[in-house]
């Protein structure tokens, strides 16, 4: 990196920053240029970094989120201060809630004006305070020499601990200063490995357990092989959260597929005497209930020690990387000659699955029909980006998922409108994979403008639009509580016409065959395709 050091001194801070990011492996940034970020863009020009322009900074942060979800690498946004940052806030909040690595680089007003309330263009009272609750840290740069350290700290967050967003704000005057200081790329440590004693304590519990259960979450996405092997060795049923779907393939007879929503799963969990929870918050957003019936002893494997004493306190807390923990447990169990093969787990799983299938409501069965068509048509490694939409809620337990980082439903923050821009970010990251977005008509409207971005970048993205002309989830809640239905039946636009106007294809699927062929065509077409399915369509009722 010696040569970089020499080069940087001749560059401005903003320009050098792009080169530094390239040094950390950044290949793509999502941003809308502004008068305040011009120096960053000077840097893009001289680098190999690809720039994607969304139609609202909210799109930038969602795209970066999607990029990070499918790759595990941080998504990077380059945005202006003030409205750029507040627009991006929702996507940053989503990444925070779901532990997604994201680096937000923004401009800030002139150093001299900060905090003075002069009424500068794009001024905020305190820019970093806005993003403080959405990030691991949010830092204001005062001198270019601070930038390399802050960037290294950001990548340390992404690589070595629970990943979450970081915001670095650079005042426009600092952005233009020469890049003084040491701008070389620094070493990023690996994630910590659990201690032996904790592993032994966990294995003590597991080997004595008569009815153990495993729960896996997003923290296990990079530990699929080890976690699967551990589950097989233990011969335990695996319950995954939304974020944990695909860690253990739904082709595996131990997998209860995703979600902890169904009563059958709750019951099974309540019977467990030991629960091994790997990389999961066990959050309300997954189960829709605050208190899951947890009666057994809890082993929590997590990189974030705060999780060991949340609403499900751990009897044994194993702090460290999920994959390392699983591998160490496998070794320790084998050392003890552990054999779990006598358990009837596979039969239990089949029985729960049958119960779950019998419990689906008619509208959920409509969703499942469409989900099954998708599953049949899409390859196993297709990436499915879900919005906050009923089709996707049903998909959590019902959509078979075969590989990690292929099913996404950002349940934590619960943001309408995330699916399309997230899918764009995913497709940019992995152009050779099939990427599908699943949206409802209400949520789609939040970010429909990003169709223009998908067209501009010629991204092949089928968009499955579940149209029930309403915020159906909320409407149902109002009906249940005898509240008049206000604001939940927005007048729907002509989505097919909108698709054409944005330069993409749009079609309504009015039967199974049409859906199948529309999806196949969409997978082969350059640019996005809206495939609309009406909830009241004849083939679904």
């Amino acid at each position: 990196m010696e040569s970089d050091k020499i080069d940087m001194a001749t560059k401005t801070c903003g320009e050098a920053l792009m080169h530094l990011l390239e040094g950390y492996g950044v290949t793509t940034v999502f941003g809308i240029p502004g008068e305040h970020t011009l120096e960053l863009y000077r840097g893009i020009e001289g680098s190999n970094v690809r720039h994607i322009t969304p139609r609202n900074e909210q799109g930038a942060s969602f795209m970066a989120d999607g990029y990070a979800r499918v790759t595990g690498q941080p998504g990077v946004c380059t945005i202006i201060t003030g409205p750029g940052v507040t627009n991006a806030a929702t996507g940053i909040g989503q990444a925070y809630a779901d532990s997604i690595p994201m680096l937000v680089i923004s401009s800030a007003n002139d150093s001299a004006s900060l905090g003075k309330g002069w009424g500068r263009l794009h001024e905020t009272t305190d820019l970093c305070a806005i993003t403080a609750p959405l990030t691991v840290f949010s830092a204001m740069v005062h001198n270019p020499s601070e930038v390399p350290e802050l960037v290294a700290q950001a990548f340390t967050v992404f690589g070595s601990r629970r990943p979450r967003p970081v915001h670095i704000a650079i005042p426009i005057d600092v952005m233009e200063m020469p890049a003084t200081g040491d701008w070389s790329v620094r070493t990023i440590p690996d994630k910590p490995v659990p201690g032996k004693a904790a592993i032994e304590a966990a294995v003590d519990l597991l080997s004595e357990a008569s009815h153990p259960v495993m729960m896996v979450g997003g923290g296990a996405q990079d530990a699929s092989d080890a976690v699967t092997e551990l589950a097989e060795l233990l011969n335990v049923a695996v319950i995954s959260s939304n974020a944990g779907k695909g860690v253990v393939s739904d082709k595996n007879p131990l997998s209860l597929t995703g979600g902890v929503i169904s009563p059958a799963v709750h019951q099974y969990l309540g019977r467990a005497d030991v629960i091994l929870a790997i990389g999961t918050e066990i959050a309300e957003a997954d189960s829709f209930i605050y208190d899951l019936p947890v009666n057994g002893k809890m082993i929590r494997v997590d990189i974030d020690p705060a999780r060991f004493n949340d609403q499900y306190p751990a009897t044994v807390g194993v702090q460290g990387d999920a994959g390392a923990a699983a591998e160490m447990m496998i070794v320790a169990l084998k050392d003890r000659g552990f054999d779990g093969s006598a358990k009837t787990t596979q039969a239990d799983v089949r029985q729960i699955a049958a119960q779950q299938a019998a419990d689906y409501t008619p509208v959920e069965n409509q969703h499942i029909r469409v989900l099954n068509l998708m599953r049949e048509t899409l390859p196993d490694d297709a990436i499915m980006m879900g919005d906050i939409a009923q089709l996707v809620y049903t998909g959590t337990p019902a959509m078979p998922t075969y590989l990690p980082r292929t099913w996404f439903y950002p349940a934590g923050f619960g943001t309408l409108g995330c699916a399309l821009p997230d899918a764009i970010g995913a497709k940019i990251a992995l152009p050779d994979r099939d990427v599908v977005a699943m949206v409802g008509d209400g949520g789609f409207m939040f970010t429909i403008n990003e169709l223009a971005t998908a067209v501009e970048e010629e991204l092949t993205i089928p968009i499955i639009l579940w149209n029930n002309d309403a915020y159906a989830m909320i409407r149902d809640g109002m009906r249940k509580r005898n509240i008049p239905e206000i604001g939940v039946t927005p007048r729907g636009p002509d989505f097919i016409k909108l698709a054409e106007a944005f330069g993409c294809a749009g079609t309504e699927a009015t039967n199974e065959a049409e859906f199948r062929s529309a999806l196949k065509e969409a997978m082969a077409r350059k640019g996005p395709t809206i495939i609309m399915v009406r909830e009241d369509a004849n083939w679904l009722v």
Partner: protein
Amino acid sequence: MTTCGEMLMEILESYGVDTVFGIPGVHTLELYRGLQRADMRHVTPRHEQGAGFMADGYARVTGKPGVCLIITGPGMTNITTAMGQAYGDSIPMLVISSTNSSGEAGLQEGHLHELRNQRDLVAGVSAFSQTVLRPKDLPGVLARAFAVFGGARPRPVHIEIPIDVFSQPTEGINRGVPVHASRPGPSPDAINEAADWLAGAKQPLIFLGGGTVEAAPEALALAERLGAPTALTINAKGVLPRGHALSCSSFIPYAPMRALMAKADVVLAVGTEMGETDYDMYRKGANPIGGKLIRIDIEPDQTARNYRADLAITSDAGLAMAALNTALEERGVRSDMAAGAEVAKQIRTDSEAEIGEWTVEHEPWLNAIQAAFDDPVVVGDSTQPVYTGNHIYESASPRSWFNSATGYGTLGYGLPAAIGAKIAAPDRPVVCISGDGGILFTIGELASAVEARAGIAILLWNNSGYKTISDYMIADQIAPVGCLEYTPDFLTIAKGFGCEATRVDSPEALSEALKTAHGRDIPTMIEVMG
């Protein structure tokens, strides 16, 4: 039983709230039960950012706070930008959100829509942000919010209510009666001193800001008594009547006005931040003021920002200007307006000459709006014709020309703010001016406008991309990156949303199209290729 959510709506109604903008969520259902009882109009945007911008437009036209009902988490982060715009321009806005249940807040257990600290998020874009932990606290918190709107520098207020509190009973709670806090008047001593200075001034100069929009008669009387050339900030357009002899219009950042500022012996700045987006767009730094500066502001600290006052008067603009006028009358000041009018005319002519090169492209289109309507509401986004209009357009009345190029400087403001304006003033023509880059930020709100039967006209200035930014890049020797290569078919988009849409190729055709649009109860998009 009346729940806390229902009581909230009843109290809002007692303060005169007739319209709320919001997207219901699982977390805010109880508010919607109250909405029916209070018989209020509910407008549903397609994104909470739209709710905030609509409330902003509603507030700018009426002076009443725009009220938003939103969910916690993403609802809050979605509306933050709109709160920033309202904060930057001192617009009253009440944002009521849910927050996670009181037993959950701050535990970071990963609850749906959880934010580590929602109030931190909005602290910088609100006058205050308050959590209501018990229903009995709510009447007092609302009273405090309306005290800000009515009695202080108006800015957004955020009230968050945990979802478990929404459904709690309110029996026995003393709601009190709505009290409308009045704004403070000026200290007599300060007025006397100011009157002495102004009475002795040979060349006084007045700046009127957005704080004077309720004080047009007082401002007119004072300007005429002093015979002082008077400059209007963008948010003060219309405070002096269109074409008034003393009006210097809004050319504040340009050389003629800067020279006058340096030359004037007493400068009176009323209800203005004297901030960058009006006074120093080109960041040349504060302009020297040769004489003395008197600042009148409702917020005392404002008189120490940007330009430090030699005499600072904390007061409502109208009360202070009326008092000054009386004091000047007592001192026998009665100026003939000829000298001031001559100066003002020179300022207008010289400024138009200075910037004519780039305003000439937009001027005929802005004139076409005035040819179509006597007193329209013109709501702008951050786009080039709006930048031009911010200097040359003269509004017939206050609260009728506003846009997001001031203060926070957002893109995507124009369309939703115009919807809010139309809902506030359904009989007035409302024209939105937006660029193709800006309108895409919030294009989903076309659906809201159709649903709300808002017959606005949208003048879409289509120059295929972020023109202002690509111009800057070229000037700074940066190859344009990210300034939008693909532009969609806006007319078909508008039709797809159920709007009328047409393209015009002359200002005359624009006038005609605007008149037709005003007669409709759905939006009309009128595209002009820039």
